[in-house]
C-alpha cells in the first residue's frame, strides 16, 4: 500500500511538472506577452522595457525555472487587470467554487448511488425507468436552461430562494442542484452497471447460499465492489465541477474562481488565467492521487500486492 501510494505520488508530481510547463507556456501562445502587457499605444521602447523588467529576453527554460521557483514560493505574478497578486485573487475566489463543488459532488453522489443501486436490484422496474429518465434528461438538458427554469420557479414564481450572490447557504442551493444534476447521471449509470455486473458474480451467489440477508448481500457484498469505479469518477468529476462551474457561477452571480477565469480570459489577463489553470490542474492531480489511494484501500488486490 505504501509503495503503491509512493509510486502514485511520484507519478502525480511528474504530471504536475508537465502541467506547470504547459501552463507557463500558455503565456507565449498568444504572441509576445510584452506587447500584450504594454497595452495599446505603447512605443517600442516601452515594450523593450517591459521585456527586460519581466525577463522575457532570457532563454525560455530559464524563464520557466524562475517562474516555477516563484510559483512554488507562492508568487504567481500580478494580475494585469487588478494590479494585485494573482495568489490573492485566487484565495479570494476559490472558497466559493470549492463550496459549490463540494456541495455539488456530495449531492450528486447521495442522489445517484442509491438510485443506481435500486435500479440494479430491480432492473427494468419503475425505479429503473425513473432513474434512466433522470439520467437521460440530466445529460440532455443544458445546465444554463435548467438553471433558468429553476430561477423562474423558485425565485420568480415562488420567491423561496435567492437567485444571485453567495452570502448564505440558501444561495448555494440552486447552483448545487444544477451542477450536480449534470454530474449525477454518470454516477448513476456507473453504479447501476457495476452493481449488475457484481450481482451476477459467483461470490454474490455464495453470499446468498450462506443465507445472508438481502441487505447484507446488496450492501456489504455487492456495493463495496461496485463502488470502486465510482470513486475514480467522483474525483475526476469533482475536478471538473471546480473548473467547469463557469456557467453556473455566472448565472447565479457567484463570485467564484470559475467566473474569475472566464472574465480574465476576456480581459487578456494572462497571469490570472495562468495561475488559475495551474491551481485547477494541481487540485485535479491531488484529487486523482487521492482517488487512486482510496481505490487501493478499497481493493485489497492493490492494497496487498
Amino acid at each position, binding site marked *: 500500500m505504501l509503495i503503491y501510494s509512493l509510486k502514485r505520488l511520484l507519478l502525480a508530481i511528474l504530471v504536475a511538472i508537465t502541467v506547470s510547463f504547459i501552463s507557463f507556456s500558455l503565456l507565449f501562445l498568444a504572441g509576445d506577452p510584452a506587447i500584450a502587457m504594454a497595452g495599446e499605444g505603447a512605443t517600442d521602447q516601452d515594450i523593450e522595457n517591459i521585456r527586460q523588467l519581466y525577463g522575457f529576453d532570457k532563454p525560455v527554460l530559464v524563464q520557466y525555472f524562475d517562474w516555477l521557483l516563484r510559483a512554488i514560493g507562492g508568487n504567481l505574478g500580478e494580475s494585469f487587470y487588478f494590479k494585485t497578486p494573482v495568489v490573492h485573487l485566487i484565495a479570494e475566489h476559490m472558497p466559493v467554487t470549492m463550496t459549490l463543488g463540494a456541495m455539488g459532488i456530495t449531492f450528486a453522489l447521495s442522489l445517484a448511488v442509491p438510485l443506481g443501486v435500486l435500479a440494479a436490484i430491480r432492473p427494468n422496474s419503475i425505479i429503473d425507468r425513473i432513474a434512466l429518465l433522470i439520467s437521460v434528461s440530466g445529460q440532455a438538458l443544458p445546465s444554463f436552461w435548467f438553471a433558468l427554469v429553476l430561477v423562474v420557479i423558485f425565485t420568480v414564481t415562488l420567491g423561496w430562494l435567492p437567485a444571485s450572490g453567495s452570502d448564505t447557504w440558501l444561495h448555494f442551493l440552486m447552483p448545487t442542484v444544477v451542477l450536480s444534476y449534470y454530474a449525477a447521471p454518470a454516477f448513476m449509470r456507473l453504479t447501476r452497471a457495476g452493481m449488475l455486473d457484481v450481482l451476477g458474480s459467483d461470490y454474490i*451467489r455464495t453470499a446468498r447460499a*450462506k443465507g445472508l*440477508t*438481502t441487505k447484507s448481500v446488496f450492501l456489504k457484498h455487492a456495493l463495496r*465492489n461496485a463502488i470502486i469505479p465510482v470513486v475514480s469518477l467522483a474525483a475526476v468529476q469533482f475536478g471538473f465541477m471546480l473548473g467547469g462551474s463557469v456557467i453556473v457561477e455566472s448565472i447565479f452571480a457567484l463570485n467564484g474562481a470559475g467566473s474569475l477565469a472566464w472574465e480574465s480570459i476576456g480581459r487578456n489577463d494572462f497571469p490570472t488565467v495562468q495561475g488559475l489553470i495551474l491551481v485547477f490542474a494541481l487540485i485535479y492531480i491531488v484529487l486523482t492521487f487521492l482517488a487512486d489511494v482510496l481505490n487501493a484501500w478499497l481493493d485489497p488486490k492493490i492494497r496487498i500486492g
Partner: protein
Amino acid sequence: MTNIVEVENLRVKIPVSAGMLNPVRGLTFEIKKGETLCVVGESGSGKSLSAFSLMKLLPKIADISADKMQFMGRDILKMSPSELQNMRGNRMAMIFQEPMTALNPSYTIGNQLVEVLRRHQNVSVKEATERAIYLLEKVGITAAASRLSQYPHQLSGGLRQRVVIAMALMCGPDLIIADEPTTALDVTIQAQILHLLKELQEEFEMAILLITHDLGVVARMADRVAVMYAGEFVETGTAEQVFKQPVHPYTQGLLSCIPVPGKTARGSRLGSIPGIVPSLIGDMRGCAFRSRCPHANGACHNNVPLEKWSDDHFKRCVLDDTALTSIAKEAIA
C-alpha cells in the same frame, strides 16, 4: 435411516426467447442422513440446476415446481424468503465449482467465515473466530489463525476451496450440496479434497449431494448414484449396482469413455458417445437419448418411465430385460 431430503417430480422451467426451456424434467429422489448421493451427467444435463433449485437459488424467472420437495420434513417450496435465508448456509450449505471466484475479493477469509455463523447463531465474534480456526485446521490449512486476516487473492485455488468447504461447515449443516467441487482443481488437489470431504462427512454426519461429470469422483464418493441425461434420471442405484452392472445404454456409454487399468488394451480406442444432448426447449416425447443410442428402436418414441431393474436399481429404457442383460454383459466384458 431417515430421509433428510425427499423430492418428487421436480421440474424447472425457464422461459427463453425460443420458447420454454425444460432443463429439469421430473426428478424424484431422496437423500438419507449421512449418505452421499452423486448426480452424474454431461454438461447441460441439468444437474447443477437441480441442485440450485433445492436451495431455491435460481433466478426469479426460473419456475420451480414439484409434487413434493421436503428438507428435514419441511416443504421448501412453501418457505418464505426469510425462512429460506435461515435454512441456507445453516442446515443446507453449498460448495461451489469455482474456488477462484466464489469468495468475495474485498473481505478477509476470517470476515467471510465468521459472518455465516454470526448470521445463523447468536455467538460472539470471538466464539465464531474460534470455530473458524478450528474448521480451517480441520480442512487441512496450516497456521489457520494467521490465515484469517488474508484475502482470497493471497491463497491458491486448493486453499480457497478448503476455505469454501470450511465456510459450508461453519453452522454444522445436515446437507452439503457440492457442485463439481473438484472440477477446477489440479488432479493431486482433487484427491485431497475428496478425501477431506469423506472424512468430514463421517465426522459431522452430513449428507452430501455431489454433482459431478467425473465418474472417477463418483466411484470414490458415492453411496448411491443417479445418472442424469437431458433433465431426467436415466438410471439410479447404489454405486456398486451402477458400476458393476450398468443397465442403461447411456451409463454404459459413459463408462466406456474411461480407461480401466489392466483391462483397456494399450492403443485401443476409448469409447465416446456420438451426437449431442438434444434441445430441451418445448415439450419432449420419448427417450431423450434415442438419437444417440446404438440400441434405439421404434418403441423409443414413447415416453419411458423409470422402472425397477433390481432391488434399488432403476432404469429408464424400453428394452426388455433379456436384451438389456445381454447388452450389459457386453458392456462390462
